[in-house]
């Protein structure tokens, strides 16, 4: 089975990379782009029988930093 972990910066945490991406889009002529936030997508190939709880444990231990990041899990 596969799991996807989407890691995003918490609201309010400054994201200078997202801001630079937004500025670049504006520079390319894309109008109406508001705030841009950059995150990470981590895809995990897991043994059958793995549970969401297992992936939560991985997120807490390593994949996300709770000081600055939120995460969500999609199992496929």
């Amino acid at each position, binding site marked *: 089975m596969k799991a996807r972990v989407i890691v995003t910066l918490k609201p309010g945490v*400054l994201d200078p990379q997202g801001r630079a991406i937004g500025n670049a889009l504006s520079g390319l002529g894309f109008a109406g782009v508001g705030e841009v936030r950059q995150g990470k997508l981590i895809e995990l190939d897991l043994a059958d029988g793995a549970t969401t709880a297992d992936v939560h444990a991985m997120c807490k231990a390593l994949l996300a*930093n709770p000081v600055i990041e939120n995460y969500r899990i999609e199992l496929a």
Partner: protein
Amino acid sequence: MKTAVVVFPGSNCDRDLAVALREVTGTAPVMVWHRDTDLPAGLDLIALPGGFSYGDYLRCGAMSARSPVMAAVIAAANDGRAVLGVCNGFQILAEAGLLPGALMRNAGLDFVCRDVALSVANSQTAFSARYDAGETIRLPVAHHDGNFTADAATLDRLEGEGRVVFRYAEPVNGSARAIAGIVNDGGNVLGMMPHPERLIEAAQGGTDGRRLFEGLLAALG
């Protein structure tokens, strides 16, 4: 004074730190590889060097903070042992939970590599005892991710408890409340982005960094 420098794959200031410790304490530190699970007995100070350990994969310091040796470093820190983390070492200490907050990408997105002015916010720690409170010093910085971030309550607590040891005295990286270096609540763990080990003798352009190590020597013997 018995010291150790932990070497991670991608550390690049480990030898600078070793030279500084040797020059000031008179004894070369033990170099400890990150895969070791034990630290040498009787250490007075454990130092985590700057660099780009694990290529900054996932987050700066994230992989190193989970290295085998870090369990021993955390145990020693919780036991009151002095731990110094410089630059990437600071990022590792934050990722390991020994210091609060996180170091994020510099607000200007640029890698900042120059000498910067710092003010000494607390001269009452073992790390800063050879500085005067409020004194302005200059130390080099060389980082892409030195933008200290924590929630407002944590920042208030750090300031209220005198745990901010060094502040930037000029714009550098967007750090919350201009924080350049903090200690843990026990005062025995310091993380700082500037590099004191790079200014320990006149030939390097100054000695403002040397006093940090001299203070540790006086405090830890």
